[in-house]
């Protein structure tokens, strides 16, 4: 007699991710962040109406990995491009996915004004405190004392200014309804990051305004640390300058945590 076995799929690649190997370094947070974004789009049934805008930076090739429509923006201009898309197609789902150089240095004006206009866009902000793609130069988010190729003695507030906390800056914009900072360096935090991304997406679906999820993301290559050390550095050092948690929430959503 034939034996019947019922298989249940418990894990797989989200449809919102293409079956393609990424160029990201071992231990990089981008792969985790990509997966979280993809899982949320899948679970919320948004993939087929999503238009994404990648940054210029390590995730510039995100359209090779994300399995939905995407358009490249010049460095820093993702949220201006996203604004144009969303205004023309208000019934589509629009996300930007940007690093700290893109969103918090060259694109600061576009970021602040997009948030302040309250554009119905979800921004995923990957903060790794360094310019990754170009080889480890100082970022606006680089911590005091942190070494970078353009701050070889470590960031010195007198010489280089202070690390910028753009999420807190955006929080004072009336158009921004939800901003949360998470890390990608523990199971618990990854799950929290996914919740935050889902909530950000819900803000857009409910036409509440602009929302942003900042993800503190390890960059072992340019931090010159092993992946394990890089994860520990996020948890023990980076979160001192960039404390995790909800920075702004005027959504009125019930917090089940």
């Amino acid at each position: 007699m034939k034996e019947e076995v019922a298989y249940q799929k418990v894990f797989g690649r989200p449809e919102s991710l293409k079956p393609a190997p990424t160029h990201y370094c071992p231990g990089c947070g981008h792969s985790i962040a990509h997966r979280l974004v993809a899982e949320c789009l899948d679970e919320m049934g948004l993939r087929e109406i999503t238009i994404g805008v990648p940054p210029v930076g390590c995730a510039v090739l995100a359209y090779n990995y994300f399995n939905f429509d995407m358009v490249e923006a010049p460095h820093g201009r993702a949220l201006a491009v996203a604004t144009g898309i969303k205004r023309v197609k208000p019934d589509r789902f629009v996300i930007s996915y940007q690093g700290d150089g893109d969103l918090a240095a060259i694109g600061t004006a576009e970021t602040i004004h997009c948030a302040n206009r309250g554009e119905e866009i979800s921004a995923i902000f990957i903060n790794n405190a360094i310019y990754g793609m170009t080889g480890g130069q100082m970022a606006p988010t680089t911590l005091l004392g942190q070494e970078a190729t353009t701050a070889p003695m470590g960031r010195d507030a007198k010489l280089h200014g202070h690390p910028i906390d753009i999420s807190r800056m955006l929080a004072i914009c009336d158009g921004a309804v939800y901003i949360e900072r998470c890390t990608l360096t523990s199971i618990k935090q990854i799950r929290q990051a996914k919740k935050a991304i889902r909530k950000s997406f819900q803000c857009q679906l409910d036409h509440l305004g602009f929302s942003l999820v900042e993800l503190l993301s390890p960059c072992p290559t340019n931090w010159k640390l092993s992946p394990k050390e890089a994860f520990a550095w996020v948890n023990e050092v980076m979160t001192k300058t960039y404390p995790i948690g909800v920075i702004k929430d005027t959504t009125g959503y019930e917090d089940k945590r």
Partner: protein
Amino acid sequence: MPSALPSAPKLQSRCTVPSEKMLMRGSHVVGEAAVRAGCRFYAGYPITPQNELPEYLSARMVEVGGTFIQGESEIASINMVLGASAAGARAMTSSSSPGIALKQEGISYLAGQELPAVVVNMMRGGPGLGNIAPSGADYFQATRGGGNGDYRTPVLAPAGCQELVDMTFLAFDLGDKYRTPVMILGDGLMGQVMEPVVFPDFLDLNALPEKEWVLDGCKGREPRAIYSMILNVNLMHQHNLHLQEKCDLITAQEQRWETVQTDDAEIVVVAYGTAARIAESAMEELRGEGMPVGLFRPITLWPYPTPALRGMAERVKKIAVFEFCLGQMLEDVILSVGNRAEIYFYGLPGGIVPTPAEVGEFIKSAARGDGKIGRRIEV
């Protein structure tokens, strides 16, 4: 009983929707023509002398169900246009010289990503902040690409308000046809002058050619990506060759120019836009004096009507070039004419708008070949 508080004065709409011939300012003309040509997205940042255009559209776009955004900068505005274009809209931005300089990054991306858009430049004096007077000093920037990389954008040079109407329609059509940004190159005077115009009816948005490349969500199809970064040198090489093929096609198919009284002319003035209007008045006065002078007016500055001007130069003795700058279109004239005719040049930078009589004196000087006004160009 307390009397009611006076109500705030009602703002008069800047919009007028003319159905018949009417007098209208150049900047407003472009705005009205744009919405009739199907433009439903405008983003721009204030700069004189073209503020009347965004002001007009700020109200008009609401009426036609489109989007007007006053961007935080020219850079943001051109990139909003990039996004709107990727999402399928006929999209436009406008500015004046220093602002157009800021938009060059976005124009280069539009060209590389093959996205249509209309960019209006009402030129003012430069370099730097310059002044707000009419100028022709952005000709190089407009016709040679302007931003980084190997590309050109079609450049239309209207010489009056009716042409602003017609060329706004044409600009959107060319943009969609060739998937390229298109520039309308006017000047401070063109944006401010009032002339009678007649508008065509509104284009039926549903009747516009379908854009099979638009990003609107991947339901029922494979996802699309629109980008200009091509790291593989062979593929980048191919992309550049593809853009070049498009340039060649535009060059072959889209040259436009006007000739006035050139059949019997011994000297022909070459000028575009506002300068051509002044030159035409000067020409009429000289014709009255019995001088055989004609006008060659390029309408597309890129592609430049080189074969037409070259043919003209075979027949006439002298070419007199007049520009609101120190000789930028002059280079295209030299490339077209070579040594087929004597070339004379008169350029007025900085916003000085001469009278027809002054330009007439230049033409006479060129006809005499004495170089008293302007200068002889040795090729």
